[in-house]
């Protein structure tokens, strides 16, 4: 497989747009730490992002000052909590440019969002011989829930292929959209390869055949502006913790017409209007999908994360990250023995690579000793590894608080790895 020269590398490493990164880094307490006597170089942002002080403060404020349940207390702390909880929903609505907060459902994360859509939207429409379309670059969380549904219903999983650069083959995708396709579930940005999929076009293609679309935005939401109305996707899922917010909280956007007709995901408190032993009527949107006491602190923390990104300017941050990715791509390409995995023309945030003759776990351990935190493994995308004929990769993934010096530390770490393995 000869990866053709990618425009990421050919494109000159443009001066990153003006971002006072030194100042920004002060907002992130975790980045001040040292590891093995060296300043932490955190390049594992695709796994989870570090949290700005404002997010930590929001969590603390909730637990210290307004720790109460939402939607049910008559006392002032509950009112405060409810106001901030619903305030976050409005922040997320604006962040995604959704038309109504009814369309914003809080879940545990992208994984739960996908499972919710699978169980409540797709499953009732699914019969033997029906099809679910995904792509070859999906994370396990956008594979396994569909496989489980297929197993339960006799439906078939179809996988749209990609090329050796890790780009989705559009005609391959189109060909697999059939009258039996009940949903197309596609990652907006691949977590293992960094490929940015042309999701607006894919959605249009699917819609022209009457197929609804779910976009897995776990990697995209922190890096590129998302406008669900422009994309016209039916569902969009992302996780709070990759968006500089807390773990355990995520968002499912769904078009109101679909959410309205879907049955609840779980039964419990808060998702009901009235309950008798004979019959229960469900609450209105979005509460129908939020059974039980929600992750109130998480939601409020996520709202603070969204605020932080808004203040920074997601477009500006994304442009800076792209500049950093281009720099890192060129830097690593020059190291003999390094092969980049994922060389799509449109990429964001992620640089996966292998070093000839050296296993990624050994690379990860040695980089860690150098203070450089990366991910080594299959990135919950084992079929992607199979596609490239490798067991694993080392993955560096970037955020706006990373610097060229940190990329240089990564490159120096790789030289060290090669030295150890002589």
């Amino acid at each position: 497989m000869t990866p053709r020269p990618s425009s990421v590398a050919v494109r000159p490493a443009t001066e990153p747009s003006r971002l006072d990164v030194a100042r920004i880094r002060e907002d992130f307490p975790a980045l001040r730490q040292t590891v093995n006597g060296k300043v932490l170089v955190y390049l594992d942002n695709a796994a989870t992002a570090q949290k700005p002080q404002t997010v930590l403060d929001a969590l603390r404020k909730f637990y210290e000052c307004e720790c109460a349940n939402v939607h049910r207390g008559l006392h002032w702390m509950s009112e405060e909590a409810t106001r901030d909880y619903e305030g976050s929903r409005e922040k997320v609505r604006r962040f995604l440019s959704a038309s109504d907060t009814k369309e914003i459902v809080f879940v545990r994360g992208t994984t739960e969002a996908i499972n919710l859509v699978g169980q409540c939207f797709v499953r009732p429409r699914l019969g033997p011989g029906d099809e679910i379309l995904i792509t070859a670059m999906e994370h396990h969380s956008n594979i396994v829930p569909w496989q489980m549904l297929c197993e339960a219903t006799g439906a078939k999983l179809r996988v749209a292929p990609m090329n050796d650069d890790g780009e989705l083959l559009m005609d391959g995708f189109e060909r697999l959209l059939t009258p039996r396709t009940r949903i197309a579930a596609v990652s907006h940005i691949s977590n293992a390869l960094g490929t940015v999929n042309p999701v607006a076009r894919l959605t249009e293609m699917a819609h022209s055949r009457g197929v609804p679309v779910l976009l897995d935005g776990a990697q995209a939401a922190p890096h590129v502006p998302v406008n669900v109305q422009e994309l016209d996707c039916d569902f969009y899922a992302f996780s709070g913790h990759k968006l500089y917010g807390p773990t355990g909280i995520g968002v499912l956007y769904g078009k109101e017409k679909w959410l309205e007709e879907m049955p609840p995901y779980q039964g419990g408190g808060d998702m009901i209007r009235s309950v008798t032993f004979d019959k229960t009527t469900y609450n209105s949107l979005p509460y129908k999908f939020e059974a039980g006491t929600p992750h109130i602190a998480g939601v409020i923390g996520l709202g603070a994360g969204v605020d932080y990104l808004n203040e920074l300017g997601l477009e500006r941050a994304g442009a800076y990250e792209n500049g950093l990715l281009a720099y890192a791509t060129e830097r690593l390409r020059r190291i003999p023995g390094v092969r980049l995995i994922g060389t799509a023309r449109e990429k964001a945030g992620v640089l996966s690579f292998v070093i000839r003759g050296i296993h990624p776990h050994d690379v990860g351990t040695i980089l860690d000793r150098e203070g450089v935190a990366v991910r080594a493994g299959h990135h919950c995308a084992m079929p992607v590894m199979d596609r490239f004929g490798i067991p694993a990769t080392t993955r560096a993934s970037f955020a706006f608080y990373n610097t060229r010096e940190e990329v240089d530390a990564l490159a120096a770490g790789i030289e060290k790895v090669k030295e150890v393995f002589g």
Partner: protein
Amino acid sequence: MPEVRDLYQELIVEHAKKPRNFGKIEGAEHSATGYNPLCGDKVTVYLTLEGDRVQDIRWEGSGCAISSASASLMTERAKGKPRGETDALFDIFHKLVTGGAVGEAEAAQLGKLAVFSGVKEFPVRVKCATLAWHTLKAALEGTKSVTTD
């Protein structure tokens, strides 16, 4: 502070690059495959017994330098040894890589395997070092597959 070289000692790197006893034993009466589901490492151990003694032992699989070198050095060591001895050796090896107290007599039994002493400073790599040993144990006990979980 433990250095990278404490883990990746020359003998380990050398065995990782040129693993010994690598390959299959066709029709081996005992074999097992070990997985480390966390990192995807995989080791299959094949062996033939002569009475209670490991007559021949080979392995194949893919993984990091630590798991490959461990499998390589383990097979070198286990060949020709009675079962009881490999069991005892695994116990000592396990203590070595998890930072347990290894007595002088035990240390003497380890021989070349002592090269894995650096693993104890890298707790996430313990499973890499012990994967082959778990697999050997499974093969001897007649279990077909084993995981490090």
